[in-house]
């Protein structure tokens, strides 16, 4: 390689470097943080280090040895950080209820004396293997329980993976609902977008410009403005219901329910369906349909056998784009939907800001991220085989 070429490559890399560094800090690092937050479970191992060390040799069947109890007493005596201890109690209580009172009683007993403490005498529950099992299970600084819980799975006492009881399972319902809403929006976008793109491609001159502008103007408009507009149109005293009343059909509840969410999301995402199909249609030679006709195909047959198959690539990439955006939607369901139309993004936000359950928020986030990236990979493959995009 010549020195000039080498220098040019080095220069090119130097130009990319600032953005690369920026994204490593503000894009890659947050995603790594999410990943580690979902699997990390440090409270017990950090606050009760001696207990964790001692309980490792335990057989999980008989009561643990004296040393384990002594280690726990020492850990509790050494621990000065009330908040960290609170985390431990919360963590253990979520695995086995009763830890809250048990730990409070044990702690005051430990603080009263300086010597060894008979734990079973302090509280009979220390004679129950289940409580020690909870500590042993929480001993590792890493856990898969958030990721399992994100898809409604859990480990039983023996460590085998099983489905959580239906009364506690909520996340699969949310995921199914997210897919159902995204699927209806995608279907509706195909139903409206495919004929519209064909209409745009079939006219020319100012008609085409006007029809294209009708797609592009909403695309350029703030998503909040569009959502606010739908809020105004769909409310019970809104224009849509006024019109329905005026023609004698009567009012429908359209806001804070599924219908409103699907209508508003279809409006927001429709351009992402129309534009890919339109660009594929433009690349189809215009003489194909006359050729099919000249070979004896009637218009319907020519459409079904010639134009539609050629258009499918655009439909597929449009559908992937719409579905991929739809499953991560937050704003529209939050503002237009009711409690039964909340999608996975809202649940993630609820865990993060509502209950500060970061592990759960992160685990659900990873589920959403993996699904989105998988769809994007398919989309990338699809558009790479067709015309080059972006």
């Amino acid at each position, binding site marked *: 390689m010549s020195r000039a070429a080498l220098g040019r490559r080095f220069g090119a890399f130097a130009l990319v470097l*600032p953005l690369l560094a920026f994204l490593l800090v503000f894009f890659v690092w947050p995603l790594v943080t999410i990943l580690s937050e979902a699997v990390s479970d440090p409270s017990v191992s950090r606050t009760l280090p001696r207990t964790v060390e001692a309980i490792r040799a335990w057989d999980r069947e008989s009561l643990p040895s004296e040393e384990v109890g002594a280690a726990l007493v020492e850990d509790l005596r050494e621990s000065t950080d009330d908040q960290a201890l609170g985390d431990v109690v919360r963590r253990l209580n979520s695995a086995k209820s009763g830890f809250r009172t048990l730990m409070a009683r044990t702690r005051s007993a430990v603080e009263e004396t300086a010597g060894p403490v008979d734990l079973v005498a302090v509280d009979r529950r220390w004679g129950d293997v289940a409580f020690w099992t909870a500590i042993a299970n929480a001993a590792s600084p890493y856990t898969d329980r958030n990721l399992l819980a994100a898809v409604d799975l859990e480990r039983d006492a023996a460590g085998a993976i099983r489905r959580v009881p239906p009364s506690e399972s909520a996340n699969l319902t949310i995921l199914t609902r997210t897919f159902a809403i995204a699927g209806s929006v995608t279907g509706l976008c195909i139903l409206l977008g495919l004929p519209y793109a064909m209409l745009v491609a079939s006219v020319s001159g100012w008609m085409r410009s006007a029809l294209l502008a009708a797609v592009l103007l909403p695309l350029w408009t703030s998503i909040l403005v569009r959502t606010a507009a739908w809020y105004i149109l769909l409310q019970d*005293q809104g224009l849509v219901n006024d019109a329905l009343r005026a023609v004698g059909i009567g009012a429908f509840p359209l806001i804070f329910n599924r219908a409103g969410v699907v209508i508003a999301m279809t409006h927001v995402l429709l351009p992402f369906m129309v534009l890919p199909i339109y660009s594929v249609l433009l690349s189809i030679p215009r003489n194909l349909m006359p050729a099919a006709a000249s070979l004896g195909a009637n218009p319907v047959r020519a459409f079904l056998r010639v134009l539609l198959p050629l258009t499918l690539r655009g439909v597929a990439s449009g559908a992937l784009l719409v579905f991929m955006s739809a499953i991560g939607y937050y704003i529209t369901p939050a503002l237009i939907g009711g409690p039964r139309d909340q999608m996975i993004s809202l649940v993630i936000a609820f865990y*993060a800001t509502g209950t500060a359950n970061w592990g759960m928020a992160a685990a659900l986030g990873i589920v959403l991220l993996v699904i989105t990236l998988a769809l994007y990979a398919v989309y990338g493959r699809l558009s790479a085989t067709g015309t080059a995009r972006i």
Partner: protein
Amino acid sequence: MWTLARIVFGAAMVTFLIAPLIAILPLAFTSSVFLTYPMPGVSMRWFEVLATDAVWRRSIVNSLVIGGSTTVLATLLGSLAALGLREQFRFAGAFRTLFLLPMVVPAVVLGVGMQILFARIGLASSYMGVIAAHTVVAMPFVIVSVAASLAGIDRRVERAALSLGARPPTVLFRVTVPLAMPGILSGAVLAFATSLDEVVLTLFVAGPNQRTLARQMFSTIRENISPAIAAAAFLFIVGTVIVAALMLLARRRSSRPAASGT
């Protein structure tokens, strides 16, 4: 019959796409406290609220400050990277994918990650944090726009400048950047628009002091819907139309061949 069906379908679709944007506009001038038709009277009271109410005013100023900073940062980083990506070097493809990925990653996921991370590194509820977050999602638009513009440059022009004795930095600033300027400018406009419209990341990383106009609109729709929304939406739509017109004008001017042989 077929023609009639096409006209009806086309008209219905254009109505569906455009009507919501038009329906909200008059409500910006309502004199009522409700966002419903018919309007009892016409007034400017909701624009006055935007201009005088402390929360709305603050949010507008915040949007301009954060949007402006995001535009500068995203345009600078994105344009440099787009210039670098013209060369084929090792991992160039991987970099390109990485740079476009912020468009794909769901905002809530990125938002939660940023919230946890920013709390740890001391950027929570700070202007710097919000600007960095907005820059991450605004930058891909700059890359796409500048890359498209660079792809249209005849590289022989740059080689000619080099052969005439110009040093590479001179070629970059006197030849390449001016030729790519339409792309850089439209990238900057898109970056500003992205920042202006960003809600989800802002929800997670901004404190009450960094509340932006979009964030304020979001909570107003959610908590106490008022026609101030329509007034803010009016400003957004008018701004969009003006910017779209300017971009169209810039494109028309740049695509016109140079008048004289300069």
